[in-house]
């Protein structure tokens, strides 16, 4: 079904963690940095007369303050609503109404914050006033004009997503229409107007109900991630908890926007049937005079070392699941690639150790996945997820998973296992060059998170140096009881299944 969904990226749905490099990518990427700090990466591909353009901002939910949880994602939605010239019939007439709406919403938020002491009659009046004002403002709105402009010009896959680490806006267009992208996207950066804020906040609440509240597996996931972090904001869900979303306002969204959406915090990738020289000129013409802003500061908070196993359970109207995590390093840190190798040995393909042991031999589980989450810019988790097969319990599955981790500490992995991973990387390097969107994704993501897209091209050489002893060392140091978080989904009415 052709439908546009604003995705909240959660690690669980991402394919496992092995980054992919590309033979020849070194020669194919053309890089340009503009005076305002905007970074442009390009690859020419003439397979079809199409082009994919991705803009990634180096700001995600990890950059939110505690009273802003959910704002990075809600702002992503809001940036589809137009600018001072697009999405409006008359911005001058619309503006004062938008200001009244926000003033009313602020009063409403303040009154609701009083809890049981709140004046319920006043809340009712303010709600009505807000609804009336929003209705009035509708007369000026040209609904989703960005979408219509892209659609009539043959745009495909117009979307955006927010992750812990970043926010990305993407579109593919017929190659002759790239200027439309430049015009719309530079306007979106220069003159955004966050109109229709409070109805969009309701949409996000529905998104939350749909993707988390009514899905026990997703509920387990967010509970599990939250329990892994005491201090670091990686623990908070990208979409925000429902009470967080209820506190979000246009004022907060605008503050976040002003703080972070600057050209020096953005990376653009344009891949496809292009002339790079012309693209540089085009991007300069449309984005070149955007003023630089303050770089996104590093999240200074570091999670303290965990001092003992943490266990969480979610009781839901669904069959059991089990997820196990261990704290580990960030992407690009020393030793981090060792976890990728371990993830592949444990979980990639039908010959992987967990698939062989839990799915084929013991038949305790129907699926096993190994990946890292919830982000990659800061130290994250090495995660094992399994679906038990009845009548086997989450406890049995957990024991079997841990037994395979113990084996990694005592027995060295084989050269054949390592060679298989290298062969796979060689294939993936080629495959990932095969779509405009895939390349644009990789270039923006690795440039943003590791500081350079060249991470991709130096990756295989790193893996070639990995020894069985390295892997044993990391397994011993990290796969310990005190560093472990275990989450289980327990079917309602079946009592506790965890040991």
């Amino acid at each position, binding site marked *: *079904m*052709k*439908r546009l*969904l604003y995705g909240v990226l959660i690690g669980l749905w991402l394919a496992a963690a092995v980054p992919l490099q590309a033979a020849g990518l*070194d020669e194919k990427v*053309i890089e*340009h940095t*503009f005076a305002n700090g905007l970074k442009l990466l390009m690859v020419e591909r003439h*397979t*079809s*007369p*199409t082009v994919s353009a991705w803009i990634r901002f180096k700001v995600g939910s990890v950059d939110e303050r505690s009273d802003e949880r959910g704002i990075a994602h809600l702002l992503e939605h809001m940036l589809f609503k137009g600018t001072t010239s*697009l999405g409006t019939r008359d911005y001058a007439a619309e503006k004062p109404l938008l200001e009244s709406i926000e003033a009313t919403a602020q009063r409403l938020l303040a009154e609701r914050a009083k809890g049981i002491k709140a004046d319920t009659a006043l809340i009712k009046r303010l709600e009505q006033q807000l609804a009336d004002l929003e209705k009035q403002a509708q007369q000026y709105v040209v*609904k*989703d004009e960005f979408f*219509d402009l892209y659609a*009539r010009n*043959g745009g495909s896959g117009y979307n955006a997503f927010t992750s812990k680490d970043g926010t990305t806006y993407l579109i593919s267009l*017929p190659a002759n*229409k790239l*200027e*439309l992208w430049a*015009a719309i996207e*530079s*306007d979106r950066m220069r003159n955004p107007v966050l109109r229709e804020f409070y*109805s*969009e*906040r309701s949409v996000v*609440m*529905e*998104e939350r*109900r*749909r*993707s988390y*509240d*009514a*899905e*026990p*597996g997703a509920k387990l996931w967010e509970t599990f991630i939250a329990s892994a972090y005491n201090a670091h904001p990686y623990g908070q869900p990208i979409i925000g908890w429902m009470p967080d979303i209820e506190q979000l306002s246009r004022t907060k969204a605008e503050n976040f926007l002003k703080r972070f959406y600057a050209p020096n915090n953005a990376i653009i990738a344009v891949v496809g049937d292009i002339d*790079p020289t012309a693209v*540089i000129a085009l991007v*300069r*013409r449309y984005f*070149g005079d955007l003023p630089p802003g303050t770089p996104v500061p590093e999240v200074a908070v570091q999670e303290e070392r965990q001092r003992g196993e943490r266990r969480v359970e979610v009781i839901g*109207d*669904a*069959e059991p699941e089990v997820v196990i995590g261990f704290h580990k390093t960030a992407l690009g840190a020393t030793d981090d690639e060792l976890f990728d190798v371990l993830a592949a040995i444990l979980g990639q393909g039908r*010959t992987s150790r967990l698939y062989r042991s839990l799915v*084929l031999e013991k038949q305790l589980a*129907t699926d096993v996945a190994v990946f890292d989450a919830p982000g990659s810019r800061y130290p994250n988790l090495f995660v094992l997820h399994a*679906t038990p*097969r*009845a009548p086997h319990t989450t406890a049995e599955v957990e024991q079997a998973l841990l037994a395979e981790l113990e084996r990694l500490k005592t027995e060295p992995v084989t050269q054949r296992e390592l060679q*298989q991973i290298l062969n*796979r990387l060689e*294939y*993936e390097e*080629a495959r990932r060059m*095969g*779509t405009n969107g895939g390349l644009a994704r990789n270039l923006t993501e690795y440039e943003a998170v590791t500081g350079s897209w060249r991470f991709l091209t130096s990756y295989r050489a790193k893996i070639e140096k990995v020894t069985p002893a390295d892997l044993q060392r990391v397994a011993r140091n990290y796969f310990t009881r005190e560093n472990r978080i275990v989450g289980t989904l327990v079917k309602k009415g079946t009592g506790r299944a965890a040991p």
Partner: protein
Amino acid sequence: MRIVIYALLLGLLNLGCAWGAERANPRSMNFPPLSFTIPKTERVLLKNGTPAYLLQDRELPIVTVSALIRTGSVYDPAAQSGLAQLTGSQLRGGGTTALQPRQLDEELEFMASGVESTFGSDNGMVTMTSLTRNLPRTLELFSDVLFSPRFDEQRFEIARRQALEALRRQNDDPKEVGDRELTKALYAGHPLGQIPTAATLQAIKRSDLQAFHRRFVRPDNLIITVSGDFDRSQIIHQLNRSVGSVRPVGALALPTIPAVPTNDKPAVLYAAKQVNQSVIRLGHLGITKDDPDLYAIRVLDFILGGSFTSRLMMEIRTNRGLAYNVGSHFDVGRRFTGSFMAETETRADATLKVIDLMTGIIKGIRSEPVSEQELKLAKESIINSFLFGFTSPASIVLQQARLEFYGYQPDYLDRYRERIAAVTREDLLRAARRHLRPETFKLVVVGDAKAFDRPLSSIGTVQQLVLQ
């Protein structure tokens, strides 16, 4: 590196001259023309008459080969629902005559080659991917999977148990419940409405998989596609040796599948789930690809529920904030009658309000012509984005094979854009009146009835579904 420096120099040279240049207004921009013609594939016949579509593309050292097989779950005996699905998974999963499943897994994964097989409702696909240098061996394994599968007993038993576990989990996600129950209701009494149960899965034996395979996976019942980095004469030679040398045994005898029975009785189906958001699905049977209204329906789909500014999306999501996901879609049938389905999820206390909105919006598109602007936007979007169906060689050859497989008119793709362009507001209204019949909708609601804004019985007699 050389190119990077070159680019930087160019950047410096350009500095200044483009700075103050004028920016265009997206509302009135003009673009250089772009003509797009569908890339040509080559169709060859292998020695045994099996057609193969070839499209060479040497950008990357990868080759993809697929077999599109006339089979599917429509051929499942009612008492063995799930047979096609298990045969599809075990064709590859169960090893080959020459290789135990484990040996096949190891050899493929060590080469970073893939062979995968799945059977859907009205077709089956086996696909191999490989680095160019591993093509000869991977192609042999692909052909062994197709024509000499082992159907290893132990792997089959594992697959059956996995299918049973999936059954146990089929009610975990309320959205999945809604989709499934609507499909069952629309296609009641037809193989397309059959869903496997524990009993039907238990009734399947290894010999049934073997017989199902023998019956359908034959060189005179499939089409091969090849794309990527290959040498033409070499690949034809290799295909003739592996696929082209297989002789069909006996005459091809495909069972006749009855047409989908018409089913115009409205229904209100309710499944209880303690959730704060209701899943709403509604619809009825639809059209086939040979319907003269096909192009009008494509345009209608965009306007009614298929785009981000569709009527359903605009009213229920954008204007009212009542849903994140809302839309509708005509699934155009290729061999059997297709369907029209509309879907959304909304907070429990807005359930009935949203059902009313959806049916009202659908009725609205039958009552008067769409606006000129709606028609223009829909047509331009479909026509201008047409080329995105042809961005990878693998998708282009597969598309060609599917045209032959499903018996489309040979000019279907070539004339698609002009036929869309010819659709008028009157065509749309006529098509909407003919193909949307709200009084016959079957409605499925999954949620917590206690929290609804109105009883479901206010719409019609409620049949409670028992989830198991």
